[in-house]
Each structure stands twice: as C-alpha cells, then as structure tokens.
C-alpha cells in the first residue's frame, strides 16, 4: 500500500503532563502529540526528564507524583536505558520473553549481530552486546509505538550504523511511531522526522527534519539542523572544545 499522508492519525497524545520527585518538578505541564508512523528523536540534558517521559508513556510510573493525560496505542515496545535483561534467562529467552517465537527471536538476534550468542547468559555479554540484545527484544514485537531510551549508547560507530539501518528497515516495514532518546545530535538528524529538545520540563525545541534519504552529514541543511540543535543544548556548534553555554 502506498503511504497516504492524509490518513495519518495520532500515536501519542500527552496533555499537561506533570511529574515530580519530591520537591523537584521534572516534567512541567508538558504537551506532546506524535502522529502515527512518525520517527521522533528526543534530546535533552542529562537529568532533564527524558527517561521520565518515556516511562510515563510506557505507563510505568504508578508511584510517581504527578498528573496529566497520556494516550498511547495498544502495542508499545520499550527499550530501557539499562539493558534490563533478566539474568536468569539465556539471551534468546530474554528476547522472546512473552512472545515465545523462537524463530523470530533468532532472527532478531542475528539482525543485531548476536547470532551464535543465543544460549549465553546476560552476564556473559559485553556492554554493547547486552544493549543490542535489549534492542532485539523491543523489536521482535512489531509495535505501534517504540520507546527507545538511548538504545545505541554503548555501540561503536560501525555497529551503530548497522543498528540505524535495522531501525530504518523496521520503520519502513511496519511504520511504528518511534520516540528515540539519544545524546547524539547527528544521530537524531540522521534518523528522525522530527527532533525534540526537552528543556525545563517541557518540549523546548520542536524541529521537523526535512531531508531526503539517504541523508548525509555533508548536506548543508543537515549541518544547519545540527547547529540549531547543538545550540539548543547549550553547545557552541563550531566544534570547538571549550564551549561554555
């Protein structure tokens, strides 16, 4: 089927979301709408509340102090910031936990470059391998909304590129809405339809990235986007080493 832009509906609706930890208000009347199928990258300073927002969208903050109205699709996948593999299940069993489709699990593991490690214990994986296994677990589900909290943080450049490709393919195939937390501005511009920067508990910057595929770092529009975002994050984007906000 060809994409029909007019048919786009909403995948995420957040109204007036407030989350507090003790006296600190981490999310402060945040509003956010993500159309179905949109790939959104979420940037923000460390501690700005990105994970808190993702956890709220995942419906995981039973205990949190706050308010707001959150609407999400039924089938949501979450890749946590920590890999969160169950240490007592072998890698494959972790990946297919709750799905029980071994073939699909093996495929997913192969896709993230862990073919042959199916029977390893999570404790025997390197940092990046664990992160990839967790990514595989969130991808086997073919979700309507994928919430990924820095899923590439511990990956080397090449593996990261491969994971980008994998994610792109997945998006092409199933068109989930994606909310991807990342610290890598290039990565955000490279992958996303839209980049958000979380500042002071709200969406401070909301930038649609209008670049054609394949995107290239060298593209002048790419560099413009990149610089705008870096500036929003408080970094002087000339590549200098001593940026002071």
């Amino acid at each position, binding site marked *: 089927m060809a994409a029909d832009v007019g048919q786009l509906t909403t995948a995420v609706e957040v109204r007036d979301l407030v989350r507090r930890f003790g006296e600190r208000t981490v999310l402060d009347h945040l509003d956010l709408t993500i159309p179905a199928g949109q790939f959104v990258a979420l940037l923000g300073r460390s501690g700005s509340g990105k994970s808190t927002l993702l956890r709220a969208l995942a419906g995981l903050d039973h205990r949190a102090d706050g308010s707001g*109205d959150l*609407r999400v*699709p039924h089938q949501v996948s979450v890749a946590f910031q920590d890999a969160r593999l169950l240490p007592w299940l072998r890698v494959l069993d972790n990946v297919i936990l709750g799905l029980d489709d071994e073939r699909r699990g093996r495929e997913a593991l192969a896709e993230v470059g862990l073919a042959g490690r199916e029977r390893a214990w999570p404790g025997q994986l390197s940092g990046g391998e664990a992160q990839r296994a967790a990514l595989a677990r969130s991808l086997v589900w073919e979700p309507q909304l994928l919430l990924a909290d820095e899923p590439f943080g511990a990956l080397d450049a090449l593996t990261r590129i491969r994971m980008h490709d994998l994610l792109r393919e997945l998006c092409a195939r199933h068109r*989930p809405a994606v909310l991807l937390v990342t610290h890598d501005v290039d990565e955000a511009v490279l992958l996303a339809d839209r980049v958000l920067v979380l500042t002071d508990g709200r969406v401070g910057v909301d930038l649609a990235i209008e670049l054609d595929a394949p995107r290239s770092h060298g593209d002048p529009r790419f560099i413009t986007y990149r610089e705008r975002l870096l500036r929003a994050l408080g970094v002087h984007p000339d590549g200098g080493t001593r940026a002071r906000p």
Partner: protein
Amino acid sequence: MTQVISRPVATPAAPPLTPAHGRLRRLGPGRAIPGGRLAGPLLIVAAWSAASAAGVLDDRILPAPWTIWHTTTDLISSGRLQDNLLTSLQRAGLGFTFGLTAGLVLALISGLSRTGEALVDGPVQLKRSIPSLGLIPLMILWLGIGEGFKVVIIALGVAIPIYINTHVSLIGIDRRYVELAEVLRLSRTRFLRSVVFPAALPGFLTGLRLAVTGSWLSLVVIEQINATSGIGYMMYQAQNYGQSDIIIVGLIVYGVFGLASDALVRMIGKRVLSWQQTLGS
C-alpha cells in the same frame, strides 16, 4: 511532511489510543494495606468467639475467648504472668544476644574464607540436623542445669537461622560489588562494613525474623528443666494440673510476642533497607 514519502511500504498503523496507565496490567501487588497484616489474626479471634458463642466449640477443648480473658486478668492481678514473662524475657534476650553474635560471626568466618567454610559450615549443618533433645544431655553435662545451659540452648536455636540466611546472602553478594571494593582497595573491615554487611542485610534480617521467634520457642522445652519461673514453666505446670486455660494464655502470649517481635524486625528492616526498590516496597 516530505520524509514520509521516502518510506516505501506500509501505511502507518492507525491505532485506537488508550490511556498509558490503563494499558498495562499491574503485576506487582500494589500498595500495602495499612495494618492489613492484623486482619488475619483478628479474623481468627472473631471465628473463635463466634464458634464459642454458638456453642460449636466445646468449652472443654478450647475455652471461649472470654474465659481466657478472665484467666489472663487473674494471672495478671496475681502478678504471676508478669513475673514469669519477665524471667522468660531475660532468658530469651540473653540467649538471643549470644546466638545472634555467634550466628553472625560464624557466618562471616564461613562466608568470607574457604578455610573458615571448611571448618565451620559442616559442624553447623551437623548441629542443625541434630535435634536439641539429643544435645540437652551433653549440654547439661558440660554446663550444668543452671541458667547457663538454658541460655546456650536458646542461643544455639537462634544462631542457626541467622547463620544460614546470613551465610547464603554473603556468598550471594554480586561479584561486581566485590570487584568494586577490590579496585577501591578497601580494607577488609571497610569492605565488610560498606559492602558485605549492607548487601547481606536483607538475608540477615530474614534470619533474624526466624530467630526472634525461635528464641521464644526454645523456652517451652528449656523451662521444663530446673526452672521455677518463666512462661514455659508456667505452661508446664499448668499441664501437670490440667489447667488448659492457662496453657492457652501461654500460647497467646507466645503469639503476641511472636507477632510483635516480628513486626519490630520488619520495621527495622524497612528503615535500614529504605534504599531498596523492590516489588514489595
């Protein structure tokens, strides 16, 4: 949005939205019901009262709660209950202190060194698989029939669950934390204080819970031998004279103290484990 066009195959799913918090089934047990733990015992007392009042319960077998209440007030006004309780408390307290110390020290020796384990663990396992009935003659032989012997028997009963639970927690400490301690070159005492103890604390507390009631239970046996006061003695005497109501008062005292000391240990546990993020917290 132009980039959407660049995506080849499917239409985006058009899902019906649900509130995020309602989408998940809660798998944890939810918030604690305040004072909920008392519901069970209260129900039991209610059932007991009802059965007695309805005459279903033969008074000769289990006297009614009010009869027991009467006996209790009698025992209190004559001072007998308090006197016996005080003696028992002292014995249990003393035995508990020694048993706690011994269990902890042995668990540390055996949990932190392989030689210690080889020497300590076997005998402790041996001890705990031998009924105290079999040990009492030896204990009397070595320690006489005075207080010493009683305190030691209580202490042995206390030391076992402390030892087992603490030892298991010790050898169950996450290796990553031990590595951290090693690279920080913590001294052995510092390692114990900052890593081993806190990590083994939950297990130790479970042992403690088993131990506090354990110290009470030993009294029943111990206070039959050369005792002239104590709750166990009171019950033994009552048995000799067929005073089943006094026996039941004794059992209730056990129950109340058991619940209270357990609640105390739990409370302490809640406080010292406040860092824990667990299913039950």
